């Protein structure tokens, strides 16, 4: 049992090291993502990679530290632990049991698990409440199953639903837009539904739970901007840039007459969206998938280093664990 706890604690420390790396990585890389010259799809893909890093790196490190004992057990590598110093922890043998899994370790581990669980539960609770309220709004609204019109003077339009997807429009919005502008808004919202953006947002929020709050905010901002601009582009393909920009302006103007503390819709910078629509097409500054390739190579380097220098990693764990 002591052995198992010691091993668990050592892997836990390796996972924390991976998390730290994954959390700090976006501080360097976000600069290459938040770039208006990139297409929205490119930005969304890149920011998704950054959001996933605090999950990927602990998994990679823990897997590779475990890979050595697993390979040894299947006789793919020699039992090299016998031939070198026992001055440090070996993830694969009884020395793991020498780690004192005391109250401090248990408290720290428990604290981290509680923090993670709280973060997930808060997200689940918010999403559940939002879903319930949207279903209620949908039940109070009128119209077709896919396009629901809610009786409110404030102009807003949103796409919602994970399984049962629908667009919710306010009567106030419909009254203030021309026929063509309504079609632009619907094209934008249906683009969100086609791309399953509500589901993507939910998954992205799950990934953000492991990020520090400030960094999560920055990543979320870039992600939402990219998703909104991609939906704008879908509307542009049918109605043209000017029509979408002008509709966006019209909706903003209409929203401003209903300025209320709690009636701010949406998580993207509308001004930036209009400026982008009116500007020339964005140009990719790097070849397609350059960022993705560099990051994949970076992950492979980390994996290779973790595998080839697993003794260094074990020594570090032993040092932190105070063996």
């Amino acid at each position, binding site marked *: 049992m002591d052995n198992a706890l010691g091993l668990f604690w050592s892997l836990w420390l390796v996972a924390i090291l991976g998390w730290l790396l994954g959390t700090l990585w976006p501080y360097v890389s976000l600069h290459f993502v938040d770039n208006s010259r990139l297409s929205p799809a490119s930005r969304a893909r890149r920011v998704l990679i950054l959001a996933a890093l605090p999950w990927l790196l602990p998994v990679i490190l823990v897997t590779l530290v475990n890979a050595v004992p697993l390979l040894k057990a299947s006789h793919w590598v020699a039992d090299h632990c016998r031939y070198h110093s026992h001055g440090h922890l070996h993830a694969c043998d009884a020395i793991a049991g020498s780690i004192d899994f005391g109250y401090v370790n248990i408290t720290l581990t428990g604290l981290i698990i509680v923090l993670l669980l709280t973060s997930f539960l808060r997200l689940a609770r918010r999403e559940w409440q939002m879903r319930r309220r949207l279903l209620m709004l949908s039940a109070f609204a009128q119209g077709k199953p896919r396009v629901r019109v809610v009786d409110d003077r404030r102009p807003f339009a*949103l796409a919602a639903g994970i399984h049962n997807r629908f667009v919710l429009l306010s009567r106030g919005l419909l009254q203030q837009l021309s026929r063509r502008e309504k079609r632009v808004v619907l094209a934008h919202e249906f683009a969100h539904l086609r791309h399953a953006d509500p589901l993507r947002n939910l998954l992205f929020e799950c990934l953000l739970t492991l990020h520090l709050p400030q960094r999560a905010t920055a990543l979320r901002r870039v992600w939402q901007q990219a998703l909104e601009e991609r939906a704008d582009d879908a509307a542009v393909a049918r109605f043209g840039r000017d029509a979408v920009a002008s509709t966006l302006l019209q909706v903003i103007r209409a929203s401003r007459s209903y300025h209320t503390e709690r009636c701010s819709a949406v998580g993207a910078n509308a001004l930036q969206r209009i400026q982008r629509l009116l500007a020339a097409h964005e140009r990719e500054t790097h070849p397609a998938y350059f960022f993705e390739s560099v990051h994949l190579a970076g992950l492979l380097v980390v994996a290779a280093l973790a595998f080839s220098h697993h003794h260094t990693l074990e020594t570090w764990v032993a040092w932190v664990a105070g063996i």
Partner: protein
Amino acid sequence: MAHQHPQSSSVPPLGELEIAVLEYVWHQPQVSAKETHAAIGAARGISANTVQSTLERLFRKQLLRREKQGHAFYYSAQVPRQQLLVGLINDVLGRFGRDTPSSLAAFVEAAEQLDENALQALEAEIIARRKREGRR
């Protein structure tokens, strides 16, 4: 009409039947459980007891008021439809506008954050572009 801004907890969770009952009550001055059952319960194959307990729940949630007339309770709406809707929409949009997780995707951002001069410049740009397009 002044906007009302109930707090996020002001709109209690409501089920499908509760919403149907509320919609019925909003269109009547006063209703009894028997009348409500005849109007919406019978068509759904729901017993009078279920309708009665739904009315009770809505009363406990402070969305209906009731008064006893003879042996029966008569229910009327305590919260107007528009006020309930405003509360619900505020919950959805309020959460949306802040930097909190949301699985929604919508059309415009917090309009109050936008600079009027910037909007005017963009409007002028759109008009100029349309004129240029018209000349071609």
